[in-house]
């Protein structure tokens, strides 16, 4: 990126891509002492041209690169493309497959939120203890993934028209056991971290995003719900089995970093409830509709919208009767939230010390922003 002009009295700090907290991106900060006047995001360090790659793969072959777009949130990323593809192929999904999909998606959401949560702890300056604990707790989910799908992450578990495999024997019990354990652990997180006055000090009233600004700047996911606007794709356009599950949209009205962290925290709790419900009430039946892997989709266009851990991901799929899609447009949540981050310095008072906290409350995953 060509760097824009800077006001002479400010100092420009290049933050990343080799910085302990920047991730795979670069941010330019125009600072005056500790105060940040302007944030410029420089994306594209992990651009892999996934949209172009998909044009050269078969419809189901595309699931593999899509899976690699967000490693911690694999299931939620790939279900968008899979739903679009099965609309294009005209496949029906059996009910049991839908429930399994919901289970895997919720586990993936917990996985993603736990990661964000650990990074948030590290960004506020905890020695990485909390980050390590979240990593260890994710291990339980990864073990469940391994048992169900065969891979710990980037499992391309969803096929158009169903899922890859059914539950192994005794899996539902182990899900319930894992849920029970994680609930125990979350008491510790709440008491040691969220209610810690030093943590509250760092997160309260930082980077306030008013609801009208959140809408105007195109925020999505926990960022939008942290500003008190109840938009969730699972409710807006119920996919998988979300119409049958008991859940509600979680919002917080404080609009600050703490609100976004709490939205994630409560969403984890709700996902655990959903996991338990699915494990106990899953209906019997088929898990996939047979189809040829070389099926050609008739000409048309299809849009699917799903809720990732980071927000809404829309996939626009054009097909034209060949085995490959004609074009796939992916509208990732992180790209939208990065724009919000770029404008936050104008909306509220942000200091250099706040930058890692704010960027992790936005929780961008640069691999899906860059595609």
């Amino acid at each position, binding site marked *: 990126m060509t760097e824009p002009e800077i006001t002479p009295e400010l100092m420009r700090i290049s933050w990343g891509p080799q910085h302990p907290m920047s991730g795979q991106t670069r941010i330019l900060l125009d600072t005056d002492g500790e105060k940040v006047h302007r944030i410029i995001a420089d994306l594209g360090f992990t651009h892999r041209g996934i949209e172009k790659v998909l044009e050269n793969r078969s419809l189901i072959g595309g699931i593999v*690169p899509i899976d690699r777009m967000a490693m911690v949130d694999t299931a939620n990323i790939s279900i968008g493309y899979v739903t679009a593809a099965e609309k294009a192929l005209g496949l029906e999904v059996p009910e049991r497959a839908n429930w399994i999909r919901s289970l895997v998606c919720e586990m993936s959401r917990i996985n993603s939120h736990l990661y964000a949560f650990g990074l948030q702890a590290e960004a506020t300056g905890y020695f990485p203890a909390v980050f390590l604990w979240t990593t260890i707790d994710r291990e339980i989910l990864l*073990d469940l993934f*391994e048992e169900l799908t*065969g891979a710990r992450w980037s499992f391309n578990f969803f096929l158009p028209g169903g899922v890859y*495999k059914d539950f192994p024997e005794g899996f539902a019990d182990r899900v319930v056991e894992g849920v029970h*354990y994680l609930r125990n652990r979350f008491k510790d997180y709440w008491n040691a971290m969220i209610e*810690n006055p030093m943590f509250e000090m760092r997160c309260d009233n930082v980077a306030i995003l008013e609801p009208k600004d959140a809408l105007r700047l195109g925020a999505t996911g926990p960022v939008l719900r942290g500003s008190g606007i109840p938009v969730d794709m699972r409710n807006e356009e119920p996919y998988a089995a979300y119409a049958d599950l008991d859940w509600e949209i979680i919002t917080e009205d404080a609009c600050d970093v703490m609100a976004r962290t709490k939205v994630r925290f409560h969403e984890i709790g709700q996902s655990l409830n959903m996991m338990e419900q699915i494990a106990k009430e899953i209906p019997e039946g088929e898990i996939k509709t047979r189809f040829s*892997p*070389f099926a050609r989709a008739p000409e048309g266009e299809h849009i699917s919208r799903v809720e990732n851990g980071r927000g809404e991901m829309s996939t626009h799929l054009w097909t034209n009767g060949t085995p490959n899609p004609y074009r796939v447009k992916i509208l990732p949540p992180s790209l939208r939230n990065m724009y919000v981050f770029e404008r936050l310095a104008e909306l509220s008072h942000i200091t250099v010390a706040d930058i890692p906290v704010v960027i992790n409350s936005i929780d961008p995953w640069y691999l899906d922003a860059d595609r």
Partner: protein
Amino acid sequence: MSWIKKLLRPLGIVAPYILRNSQTVAYPTERLMFKERFRGRHQFFFERCISCGICARVCPCASIELVEAEGHEKTYPSIDYNTCSFCGYCVEFCPKQAIEFTDVVELAVDDRSTLKYSPERLSEVPDIKDLVPRMKRRTEAYLTDKEMKYRKVKDV
């Protein structure tokens, strides 16, 4: 007062962690048991294969190629692990279950050209003791109410 209580409570929560058991599995000497469906290296069965080539066509990474094998009449899949992404489509769509997954994950080599596995090589699964000579035991994770623990399953 409640503020002070909140400030001191994390200390009380974190201090007992010192006494918990660690979550580290010391890899070269011990290894976790993988689950039944684990996607490790493939195993190929000559007697089941009908050389239909579906695996090669369905492979999204174009890692599978049909090659001739010595002592066999038809062509059989060879897998290039430089590009394989372990997506499992070849296993899923094989009409005769001629390709299956094993739990071998030790694929690291000095020379990347040796990562292209011929059908003969795919049909043999080496023993774990040959791959990792220092391996002593296989362990397994289990959950108690408050922590995750590891126990030995078997000696290697």
